[in-house]
């Protein structure tokens, strides 16, 4: 029994640890460089999740927002970095047949309102003015920290909005609306004030794609659920509660995101590739022209998670001056040209001002794979020793 377990452990360790290093060839070196330089350049993550709809029949908008809240929290963004705005409290609505719960699926498997939900702006706090003040940081001095967006020029911000909208506007509550110009100008001010590094703007509403048309500040990736003239539809209906519980665009995003964890290397391109306009019943839009990085190099966790990039490694990276290895330096340019071809179908070509070229070539260093056999043997013996210790202890 113990022997079998030991054998399995050994094989597993060999497969996971030793195997990759043995099959590494010289040609993969540029990929390593790539990975090295594509380490996230931001240092903190924030999320602003906004439901702008009131009333019981808009239950699904609250569920949309809470589902996103659950996802970003699961992926590591702490409550202190999440601003959650809910315009209504359907959990405590007397019409709610299951009091103090909010579900996004008729199976009622996950109670979105179950534990530790921190709503920062609720009910009539959710106004256009408060939202713009929050983004631009123009809050009153007595505003508590939980109601402030305390970002800096190293912050990646995920902004998710849902509600009832139209051509270039989104309704707040029942009385006012925010226009795409308002949001674009708020982002511009944020950029001027160095309040963000990158923004992911996602909106699920009717004619959602019109909401990001006026953005003009750099480093913004924007996604919407439907084209101009299109409605965004609800997806699942709970006949027990008597309302629709989630919208299509949000649902199909979540369907993918549920399989994403903190360590995931899934990119936005992967997510977008799963979009099926037949199931979503509208045409989601992605605006990338303000965003310098190609989508297949943008990790979902860059925005939706707060991953601590701590990696334990026994390898070391040997940096040599670029002059010594000109060929490797040239290959560095490849990643910037490759995605252009790939992106051409879905979005306008990316301008060649990508992150890689902004780094001076003179400072680039080629990396060589360099692991002597002696070290590899020592490593193996360490593993065997450890495994033996484990087996003995069992």
């Amino acid at each position, binding site marked *: 029994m113990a022997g079998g377990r030991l054998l399995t452990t050994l094989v597993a360790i060999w497969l996971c640890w030793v195997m990759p290093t043995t099959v590494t060839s010289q040609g993969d070196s540029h990929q390593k460089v790539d990975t090295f330089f594509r380490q996230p350049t931001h240092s903190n993550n924030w999320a602003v999740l906004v439901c702008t709809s009131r*009333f*019981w*029949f808009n239950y699904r908008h609250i569920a949309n927002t809470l589902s996103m809240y659950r996802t970003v929290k699961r992926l590591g963004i702490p409550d202190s970095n999440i601003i959650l705005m809910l315009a209504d409290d359907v959990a*405590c*609505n*007397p*019409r*709610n*047949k299951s*009091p103090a719960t909010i579900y996004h699926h008729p199976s009622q498997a996950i109670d979105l309102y179950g534990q530790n939900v921190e709503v920062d702006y609720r009910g009539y706090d959710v106004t256009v003015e408060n939202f713009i003040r929050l983004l631009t940081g123009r809050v009153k001095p007595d505003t508590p920290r939980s109601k402030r967006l305390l970002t800096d020029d190293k912050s990646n911000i995920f902004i998710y909005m849902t509600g009832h909208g139209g051509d270039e506007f989104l309704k707040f509550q029942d009385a006012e609306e925010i226009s795409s110009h308002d949001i674009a100008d708020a982002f511009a001010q944020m950029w001027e004030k160095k309040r963000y590094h990158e923004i992911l703007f996602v909106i699920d509403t009717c004619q959602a794609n019109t909401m990001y048309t006026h953005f003009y500040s750099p480093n913004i990736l924007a996604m919407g659920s439907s084209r101009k003239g299109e409605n965004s539809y609800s997806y699942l*209906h709970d*006949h*027990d*509660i*008597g*309302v629709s519980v989630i919208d299509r665009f949000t649902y199909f995003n979540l369907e993918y995101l549920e399989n994403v964890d903190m360590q995931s290397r899934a990119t936005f391109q992967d997510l977008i590739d799963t979009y099926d306009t037949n199931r979503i019943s509208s045409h989601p839009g992605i605006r990338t022209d303000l965003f310098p990085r190609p989508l297949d190099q943008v990790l979902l966790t860059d925005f939706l998670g707060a991953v601590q990039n701590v990696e334990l490694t026994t390898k070391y990276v040997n940096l040599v001056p670029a002059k010594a290895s000109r060929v490797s330096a040239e290959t560095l340019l490849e990643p910037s040209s490759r995605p252009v071809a790939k992106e051409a179908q879905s979005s306008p070509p990316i301008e060649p001002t990508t992150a890689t070229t902004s780094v001076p070539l003179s400072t680039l260093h080629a990396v060589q794979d360099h692991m002597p056999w002696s070290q590899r043997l020592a490593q193996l013996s360490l593993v065997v020793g450890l495994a033996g210790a484990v087996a003995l202890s069992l």
Partner: protein
Amino acid sequence: MTDDKRVRQGVRTLRVVTALRRHINWLSWGLLAVGLAWLLVLPLELYSNRTYLSENALMPNQARRSYGDAQVAAAHQHLQALVNRHDQDSRVAYVFEWLQRLGYHAETQSFQYTQTFVNQTWAGTNVHGVLHAPRADTTEALMLVAPWRFATDPNRSNLSGVAHVLALAQYFRELNHWAKDLILLFPGGPPTLGIEMWLRRYHGEAMLSPHQADPLYVRSGVIQGALTFELPHTAAYASLGIFHEGKNGQLPNLDLLNIIARITKQENVPLTLHHIVRSSPAQLNGHQRNWLSSDNWPLLYRHYLDSLRTLWTTMAAQATGLTQGTHAPFHRYRIDAVTLQAAPHPEATGPAAPWPNGPMAGFHFQELGRVTESVFRSLNNLLEHFHQSFFIYLLPSPWQYISIANFIPPVLLMAAGLLGAALGSWWSVHGYYQPPSSMARSNPPLTTTTKQAAYDWWVQQLFAQTETQFPRRIHNYAAFWTLARPTLAVLVVFHLGLGTLLYLLPTIVPQSLQIVPPGLFAHLGLSTAEAHMALTQGFTLFSCLVSFGAVRQWYRNCYDPRLLRMLTLLLLMLAIAAVSVVNFSLALALAMLTAVPFSLLPTPNVKFEHPTNDAPAVPTFSGGPFVWRSVLLAWVMAISPPVLANTMAWATNQTWTQLWSGMVVEHQLFGSWVYPLLCFIYWPALMSAVLILCYPSLRIDSIPNALGMDK
């Protein structure tokens, strides 16, 4: 603007006005004809729109309903228990006890109401129970009403309705999703009166002396919707009829009917308006609607007839405002309410059975319970108030509506026709004093060859015309006033005075029965309504005679039937136009009754013996041939209120005294406008018509003297 331009404009205007003056009668008759023909367009399938749910919050058919066998069994138990109790008091006690047992806050309210006009006292006991919403702030409420008897037919018992509501009371108590309180009301006495007394007390209206009703202590919030059930005591129902018209043209919000239509469709319960069974489907599909294909014509024809019948019935109900059900009093308190009345299934025999043998035709408690549960779940979602959808509409079927923009034109056209006829009268009066201008028809003399010369000629003519027609405005106003005073006096003093008297009669008559002519009416064996009618006719006759006398003796110099005709037509026109936006059906009834005969009233023709500009005009008048006037007089008599009351009584299988006293009671108790409209508009207008027809001539030669004009 230069003078030239102004003159040219003046010439153009003058030409138009002259043409209008010449053809005004034909124009007004044309407008009337178009208005009447338009009415026949209303039932066309193409002309109406499909109803749609306007308020997103309502969400009908979105929730699973679970009214089931247990509730049906409870309903049958209650029904049996109620049938076994034979007197009203023990039944009321039963309901009260059950409400208390179920945890409702229950209360009884006794009332007594004496109606002086019909000299009758009604008494009864209302029972109501309030279920406070478990998690809401209890500022809003929904109502479920079951009267003990049918409001429209007091001989039919509604024990099934009471049992149905009691079973629902039990079931609703178990649900936890109420955002509004539920009020269940079982009105006693005559159902509409019981409701009215209850509503008055609920809304804190001060009770007048004859109204005695206990105050209500068990209360709730603002009532946002009410549903009344009237179910005959039979084994199965064929269809569910909606009755929705209130007093004075008030209707519930269309969304209330929309959710009922959608929910009954979901539950496979046939729905009708006023029990009008259609021979064609109420909703035609895209193919069936295509009137270009001759295959569809029989179907479209049947659809048209069904819609016509539905419109006619519902509009008649809206116009008269006679009580159609217990929902009617609610509308006055801004509560959207309808009565759902089940029609017995023709194949159903015997009383209701909880577990019928074999498949049952029609439907019963099970389907009704599900419909009610769904409707209340939907109403429970309502926010604040019904406000999104239409409050003014016509329904050719429960699935189609005609909006006010589409149905108001015919009535307004008829009003415009009357206005044209009034203008014709006025111009005819005006034309007498000024020799008619032959200008519009004449052309510049042949000698003028150049354009400029022709133009100068026109300008000359225009100034000449203006000189003679409008010498001094003040003088003409004074002339009009001198001329109009006697006519106005006839209209205002005698006819509107009569109206006031008629209006006050219902309150005077009971006293007069006891005091003024002691025992006279009783001696003659007349009921109050009959006495009222006799007095009304007496007053009318008296007033007519006084008018005639006054016209002959006092105002002989200045009385002008054309002015009376004009003022009468204006009065009618104003009444029709004003009422049409509130109670379209009533305005339409008024227009259909009066427009044609009144526009045909003779305008005495003015004929000038010497139609030249030099000699003074010597006009003669004629009121049309005697036979024609007799025909019109008969027509006017045929649409007089007593004849109408008799006709309607014959049509609705009631006695005219019932109708007559019903109308007065409707006014006194529910504030219906039919009686005041009759007193202040209809009857005076008819009297003026009679006067015009009987006394069409005037002494024209003395008028210029009266005006101080030179001959």
